[in-house]
């Protein structure tokens, strides 16, 4: 009863989750012009595109992609043999366990009419597939631990998914090993499948045989046994048990564990631990099933579908609807392997600007949550903005992505997306924001009194060595006179607020608001003509750079 409820609930969550994730592919508008493509139209176009591909020669492209990229995982082969082996072990081990073991009633018994989970080759294969998964996981962790590069942190959802997988695997092995040892389990089988009477000689012989050869740990029947008893036991075994039981040594992992637990077997059996383990194993499977669409493991659907779709699509040929859908699938096809972040050209910046949203592997997830319509706080949006624009568009992430995601276009779309939300390129954002609220306009012709000394501001200034050079400015205006930006305006003071020499002057007067609010900062070409020509050696351009740093920080704190 509980079993059925749990099964159907988890199955229902799994299906709803899948439908939700699939529906995102038709709803998410990754590119700006995807706004013009309503979800229903995209769904129909997707179905149409799929059918026409199936009925055309492109079908063979799909077959090729399916074999090479999905079954053989060519893209991992190209990026490293050990990694390929690790992923192949996990993928195939897990898939075969799922088909042969978890779905045995549906799949295995339909294919093999003499299927018993305790019979070879199934007994052996279950352990072998399990070992593949364990080996793959160990290799994957090994790579992570000994990788010379910092890798992106695993997200909590991914972490839980891995924990569930580990619980399923470990509880499975423990369950099998406690069942091998269990005397109660043995007694139950004997009473169900044989006509032996309790405490009879036959019962003793069979038990002796099972204790000797099948790993059962008994309280009363202990070896060494004489040959006759064992021979008799063997006879009885062949009569009633052999048809369904291969020797448990074939289940090499579980058998090995059961030998290790030999001394505590009685306690385990009395406590009925195997029932507990069975529940742990089953419930972990159900939780894993329900969790799958929401976890990293969803990539077992999304990545193959992306690879297949991408293999037969081009932006020109596929039409705007299907292209918009492909871009949305692309967002889900990331396996969060972190290759992009390891190759990222600005990752080193994390030491000074600890904003993970600058790393491609994390920016990707941020884009998803933006599109999912989650109401992100201003702080988070600012982090995405900063991360998006620290990126130098060097294409390296796109080059190394093993799945072949076009990350470059994704970042371009993300920039447009945050710009639409009011967070464009930081310099432009500063220009717009400061321009709107430009202090000098408020003052008009009023005579300014020196504002109170802002110690924090002075400290920030003094940290930037070049800034302190403003103090030797004697106001000759050479900087302003050579500035090509000043020359570009008919009325520069109106456009720029403070001219370069006035900025130096205001610094001397400690007019923090005027200085940080000056539009000149965001119009500076950084051509260094002013600094080069200054007779006093004031590092004017460097001062402006420093002020831009401070102004951006202040702006971030304000909003």
């Amino acid at each position: 009863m509980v079993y059925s409820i749990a099964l159907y609930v988890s199955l229902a969550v799994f299906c709803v989750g899948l439908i939700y994730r699939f529906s995102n592919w038709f709803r998410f508008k990754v590119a700006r012009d995807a706004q013009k493509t309503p979800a229903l139209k995209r769904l129909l176009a997707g179905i149409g595109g799929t059918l026409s591909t199936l009925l055309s020669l492109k079908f063979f492209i799909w077959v090729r992609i399916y074999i090479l990229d999905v079954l053989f995982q060519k893209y991992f082969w190209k990026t490293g043999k050990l990694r390929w082996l690790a992923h192949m072990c996990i993928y195939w081990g897990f898939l075969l366990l799922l088909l042969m073991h978890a779905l045995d009633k549906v799949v295995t018994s339909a294919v093999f009419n003499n299927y018993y989970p305790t019979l070879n080759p199934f007994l052996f294969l279950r352990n072998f597939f399990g070992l593949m998964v364990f080996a793959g996981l160990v290799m994957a962790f090994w790579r992570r631990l000994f990788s010379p590069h910092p890798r992106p942190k695993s997200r909590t959802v991914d972490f839980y998914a891995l924990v569930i997988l580990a619980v399923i695997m470990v509880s499975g092995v423990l369950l099998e090993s406690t069942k091998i040892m269990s005397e109660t389990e043995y007694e139950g089988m004997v009473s169900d499948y044989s006509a032996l009477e309790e405490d009879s000689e036959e019962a003793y012989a069979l038990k002796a045989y099972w204790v000797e050869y099948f790993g059962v740990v008994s309280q009363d029947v202990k070896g060494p046994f004489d040959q006759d008893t064992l021979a008799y036991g063997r006879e009885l075994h062949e009569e009633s048990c052999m048809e369904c039981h291969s020797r448990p040594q074939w289940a090499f992992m579980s058998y090995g564990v059961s030998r290790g637990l030999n001394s505590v077997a009685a306690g385990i059996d009395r406590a009925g631990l195997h029932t507990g383990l069975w529940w742990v194993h089953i419930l972990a499977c159900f939780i894993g099933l329900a969790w799958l669409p929401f976890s990293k493991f969803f990539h077992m659907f999304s990545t193959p579908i992306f690879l297949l779709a991408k293999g037969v699509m081009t932006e020109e040929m596929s039409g705007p609807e299907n292209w918009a859908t492909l871009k949305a699938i692309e967002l889900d096809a990331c396996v969060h392997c972190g290759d992009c972040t390891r190759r990222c050209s600005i990752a080193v910046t994390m030491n000074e600007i600890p904003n993970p949203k600058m790393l491609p592997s994390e920016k990707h997830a941020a884009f998803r949550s933006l599109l999912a319509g989650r109401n992100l706080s201003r702080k988070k949006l600012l982090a995405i903005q900063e991360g998006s624009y620290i990126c130098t568009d060097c294409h390296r992430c796109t080059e190394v992505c093993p799945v072949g995601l076009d990350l470059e276009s994704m970042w371009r779309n993300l920039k447009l997306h945050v710009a639409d939300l009011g967070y464009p390129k930081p310099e432009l954002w500063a220009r717009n924001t400061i321009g709107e609220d430009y202090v000098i306009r408020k003052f008009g012709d009023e005579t300014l009194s020196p504002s109170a000394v802002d110690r924090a501001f002075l400290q920030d200034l003094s940290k930037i060595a070049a800034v302190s050079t403003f103090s030797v400015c004697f106001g000759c205006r050479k900087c302003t006179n050579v500035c090509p930006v000043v020359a570009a305006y008919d009325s520069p003071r109106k456009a720029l607020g403070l001219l370069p020499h006035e900025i130096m002057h205001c610094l001397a007067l400690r007019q923090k608001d005027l200085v940080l609010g000056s539009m000149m900062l965001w119009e500076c070409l950084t051509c260094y003509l002013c600094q080069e020509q200054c007779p006093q050696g004031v590092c004017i351009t460097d001062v402006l750079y420093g002020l831009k740093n401070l102004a951006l920080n202040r702006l971030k704190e304000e909003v």
Partner: protein
Amino acid sequence: MAKRFAVFLGCNIPARLKSYEMSTRAVLSALHVDLVDIPEFNCCGYPLRNINRDAFVLSAARNMALAEQQNLDILSLCQCGFGTFRMAGHLLDRDAALNETVQRALAKEGLVYEGKIGVRHLLGVLFHDIGLNDLQKKISLPYENLQVAVHYGCHALRPSNILRFDDPVAPTIFDRLVELTGAESVAWPLKLECCGGPLSGTHDSLSMDFAEKKIEDARRAGAHWIATACPYCQIQFDTIPKRMAFERGEDLQVPAILYPQLLGLSMGIDMETLGVDSVRSRIAEFRKRLAA
């Protein structure tokens, strides 16, 4: 002994200006300069300068530390990158607190920045290390009647006390490198001014104005081509005329060419190897007819 450098391509060149890399490699290999690629190089730090000084210095320092590990001078093709490295080196020398923060971050990867290596720009290497005489010997197809407007680029020239590239008021290195190909370097009033590139994305129309003014100035001085040695400037001169045609309906007629392309063509290297694109159709008319 062959000269060896750690070539620094930065982010722009591999992604958006492959021809700069192609032409530089072709020319330098013909001149027996070895270029060592360091795949771990990161952003030079230039794009971070508006945002965070310490981050820009750290980025630059990491690259310099990587080159130091191999005991190689950095050869930058980009003037902004060159200027950023030299500026970062200057700040690291002067500012002990900054130096400490940077070293601490580098130490996490087992790197140290000691300031032992030099940072060079392509033009400087051609001028000082190869020398005009040796370069001259390689010119097999000199130009004739070709007028070139030499665009120095700001971030290699200024601030001159730190960059020490050439005379900031009357520089000659680039002009002399251009003239040895047989081309004539024209005098143009806006020669030393900015291409407008740094304001692209922040104030696009102003950025366009500067490029437009420069290109127009070069045309008026009679230039056929503008020669550049920086990806930012080259991209600016490449894209602005297209945008101008689209947005302002104007046709700017002075295409830009990267210096190693200009040099490579006169050394007889073919156009494909150099990645020559925009000036392709006009090369023949400027080639000196060699005595048969």
